[in-house]
């Protein structure tokens, strides 16, 4: 490799002076040497150049690169190296010899070929030529495909497949699969697993990508971002769907009530509940001993109910006086007694007909319209003129079902959308 300094050294001195005005300047100023100029002289290393004095010799000679097998004559400029410097004198070939790596080509003889390597699409001649070309072209497949001349046209993938399969077979013959080392086996595996069809389709796909029009690229970007969005929302959607399915199913008790089937077990349970209740601020359970134990006691308790009524100042007994009315009377006067465990009554006045109109109005007007449309569809009149208990109950049952239906439809919409997008994704 020639450096700039080499070239400059090779040029005649006065030539260097004319070419480089900066270099010329100090020579003019040499008549009056003073400090700045001396410094500049040192900077430009002029003395070193001049001190070397002699120009280097270059020769123009002819050589044959040893890596070439054809007798190509190459002429090139070469520095006539001083005899002292032996490293430079070595021929150019040795410099590049390390790059000259022969491709490893597995060898086979006629017998092996006949026994193991025959192929319906390939003659022995063609195979031989393929291996020769492979060696010639240093195993560079595009070059091989370009150089290979065959009677029938062969694609690169066919050649690769043939070459690799033969390599694999030979490798297997050399060392049986059981005796292979790890690296040998991995090489064998790679060779075996070559699939020409897959490779061809892969290339075709890559080539297709090169020729895609702009709008297709845009569309794909949009679809991909949509897909990404769906994937992001997948979790929430899944959980929502799961939730809905759970709602549609009956809750399954995780333990049966069998353990409380005996009266003793029930008493224990009652005691437990009572104990738990005592811990709370507002106690809802009352111990059994007052009302429960009395009737079971002796006949002395017979006159006690009278005593009971005399002490009736508490609301509890007042309520009992309500319950005292006969069932017939209760009905006759339209009195309803709320059983324990039922939901609490609202205070003040309510109208039963409100229970028939209020559930129809949802938070959003869109939802309200949907409810109205579905109600009309199933034939529920807009105004139900008879808000009796049974009618209200039936209506509430309908509205509960309606909620389920609307939830289902909501999920349906989402899933349809997702299906469309996924379908489009398939089509790409």
């Amino acid at each position, binding site marked *: 490799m020639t450096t700039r300094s080499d070239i400059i050294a090779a040029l005649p001195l006065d030539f260097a002076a004319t070419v480089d005005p900066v270099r010329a300047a100090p020579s003019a100023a040499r008549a009056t040497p003073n400090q700045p100029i001396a410094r500049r002289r040192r900077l430009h290393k002029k003395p070193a150049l001049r001190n070397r004095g002699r120009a280097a010799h270059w020769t123009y000679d002819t050589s044959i690169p040893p890596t070439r097998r054809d007798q190509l004559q190459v002429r090139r400029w070469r520095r006539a190296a001083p005899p002292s410097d032996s490293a430079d004198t070595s021929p150019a070939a040795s410099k590049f010899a390390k790059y000259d790596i022969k491709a490893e080509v597995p060898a086979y003889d006629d017998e092996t070929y006949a026994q193991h390597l025959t192929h319906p699409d390939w003659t022995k001649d063609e195979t031989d030529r393929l291996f020769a070309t492979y060696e010639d072209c240093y195993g560079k497949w595009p070059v091989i495909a370009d150089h290979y001349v065959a009677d029938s046209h062969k694609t690169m993938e066919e050649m690769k497949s043939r070459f690799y399969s033969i390599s694999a077979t030979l490798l297997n013959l050399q060392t049986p699969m059981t005796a292979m080392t790890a690296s040998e086996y991995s090489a064998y595996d790679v060779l075996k697993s070559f699939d020409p069809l897959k490779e061809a389709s892969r290339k075709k796909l890559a080539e297709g990508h090169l020729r895609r029009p702009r709008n297709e690229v845009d569309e794909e970007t949009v679809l991909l971002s949509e897909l990404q969005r769906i994937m992001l929302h997948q979790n929430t959607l899944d959980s929502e769907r799961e939730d809905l399915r759970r709602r549609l199913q009956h809750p399954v008790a995780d333990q049966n009530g069998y353990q409380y089937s005996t009266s003793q077990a029930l008493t224990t349970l009652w005691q437990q509940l009572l104990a738990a209740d005592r811990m709370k601020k507002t106690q809802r359970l009352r111990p059994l001993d007052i009302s429960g134990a009395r009737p079971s006691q002796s006949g002395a308790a017979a006159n006690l109910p009278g005593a009971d009524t005399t002490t009736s100042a508490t609301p509890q007994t007042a309520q009992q006086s*309500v319950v005292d009315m006969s069932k017939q009377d209760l009905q006759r006067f339209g009195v309803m007694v709320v059983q324990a465990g039922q939901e609490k009554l609202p205070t003040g006045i309510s*109208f039963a007909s409100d229970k028939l109109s209020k559930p129809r109005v949802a938070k959003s007007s869109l939802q309200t319209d949907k409810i109205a449309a579905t109600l009309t569809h199933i*034939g529920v009149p807009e105004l*139900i003129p008879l808000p*009796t208990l049974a009618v209200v109950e039936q209506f509430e049952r309908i509205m509960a079902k309606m909620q389920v239906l609307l939830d289902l439809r909501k999920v349906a919409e989402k899933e349809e959308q997702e299906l469309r997008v996924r379908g489009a994704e398939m089509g790409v």
Partner: protein
Amino acid sequence: MPAAPSKRVKGTQIRRHFLIGNTAHVLPSPGFPDPPPDGHTKGWTVYVRPLPNGPDITTWLKKVQFKLHHTYTDASRTIEAPGPFEVSETGYGEFGVEIRLYFAQESGEKAVYREHYLVLAAYGSDDQRARQERENKIVAERLETIEFNEPTQEFFKTLTSEEQFNWLKVKKGRGKGKKPDFIFEGAVEPTAQLPEKASEPGQAGAGGAWSVQYERQVLAQLQQSAAALDHSIEQEKRAMEERRRRLEEVGGAIGAK
């Protein structure tokens, strides 16, 4: 000793059915001024009534205020117990009448608004319409059920007293120093519940149509609707299964890709 008026009877609810509605007639019609005021074509009566054979409505309802359309003179009409709680007018257009119900004092409840939209034109099926036109009487009413939740003790007492049915009974034996006896002479024992059967059909407008029979009809209709709804839910479920299958398919295909 009477209980404090604020004390309420816990865990009870008393229900009373009553009617809100209107009748309408094409003028001229008996009972309305003839000739009618300029431009008025219909005579109507808006009312709040008890069910026939039910407890006395004045037990709990003391005053009703009807707010008519503001173009009527003296648009706010107030009727005090014992009623009847109704307003008759002539007019040409339908509008919403605001009805304010005032309750018995011992109830301790505030007045409540209900609304009734006047119906002056014939409505319903062709049959119904033909009958309404033939009879020159349109009845548009609905059953309301008022629920007194946890009434005060005093109010509870009046609402469960036998005297509520006195209005249906005939007084007898008005002797000296003796309370009059009330003898019920109707066929059916009065009750706060809906009557089992509708009374004779001619009595529409007097609430005769409201009965358990009618309730059963409504229930049957609703049950049909519920069945239709069940059907739709089934369909949706099936569609959902189908979609899930397709999703899995498509998902599988994409995964394979």
